């Protein structure tokens, strides 16, 4: 009696792996799509980045030289 290289279990496991791969690829596509929409939808994207930026404080006077 020889060992079979392919078992029903291998087929099922492969199906599960392919299914998971497709789900993950779909998720990547959705996050990418959402990112593109959020970035291009026109909301202000600038924020404080360790340095004070008076120009993004609502109502603040423009800095000298502006």
């Amino acid at each position, binding site marked *: 009696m020889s060992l079979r290289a392919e078992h029903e279990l291998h087929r099922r496991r492969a*199906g599960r792996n392919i299914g998971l791969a497709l789900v993950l690829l779909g998720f990547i596509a959705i996050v990418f799509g959402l990112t593109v929409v959020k970035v291009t939808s026109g909301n202000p994207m600038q924020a404080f980045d360790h340095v004070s930026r008076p120009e993004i404080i609502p109502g603040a006077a423009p800095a000298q030289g502006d």
Partner: protein
Amino acid sequence: MTDASINTQTIQPEAGFGDYVALLKPRVMSLVVFTALVGLLAAPVGVHPMIGFASILFIAVGAGASGALNMWWDADIDAVMKRTAKRPVPAGKVEPGEALAVGVALSGFAVVMLALASNMVAAGLLAFTIFFYAVIYTMWLKRWTPQNIVIGGAAGAFPPMIGWAVATGGIGLESVLMFLLIFMWTPPHFWALALFMNADYEKAGVPMLTVTHGRRVTRNHILAYTLLLAPLAIGTGFTSIGGPVYLAVAVVLNALFLIGAVRIWRRDEATSQDDKYKVEKSFFGLSLLYLFLHFGAILAEAALRPYGLGGWG
């Protein structure tokens, strides 16, 4: 050890991808997708199609996650009932621990992703819905009170509210009315099912109204809830999500639903057994159509609005 001895060992059946999908109750998910989509599209504020699509998907994943948690907790009674015995956990395809892990992981994933895709109100409502279905309904009420499906029905009623919140960022009268429509529809829908599936619930020891208070009381309750549902469903037609199309559909469907409920109420057990619960079964079928067409009509009003035809002008 020889090759032969290896081959005689029993290999534990491993779950396929479809078994994990079945864990998420795809049929319930399809209803959630439909009602959440109607809530989203009926809202007065539009959303970007990509955000709308992703949000509906995350709402569906959240609903699926609560389904997995329900299957983990209820595996013992699912194994007893004919209708549920083939679910992945009682069938031995998926381990109970795996169902719990899938449920918890997907719940967190769905809520966080919905918050990122839309807003905190929608995500908060989704989190509450999952908690309500998995903990309040499945773990607490289902095996404790015959009013289980009345209060548990709230979990199924939240999706249009979440869809509305995705678009508006809040809660409105119309979204509460859509919630109430499903909430009040659930008891007559499930009790009609319980009238002709009683043996299953009795065997599993689930305190359905038919088991605890008998069929006469159940028939009275079906009529009472249908009487309360009708003005609510028709009244919704006069709000901003309603219109002539919705109102016409609602009047016809509620008249038919009321006639069905009265027929169920007037029958006794002997008559029902004689014709194998014909009236109860047709009422159950009508109840499915009832909900689908009400939400379909809300969707139709929303679709007609850009052409100046939907709503009350």
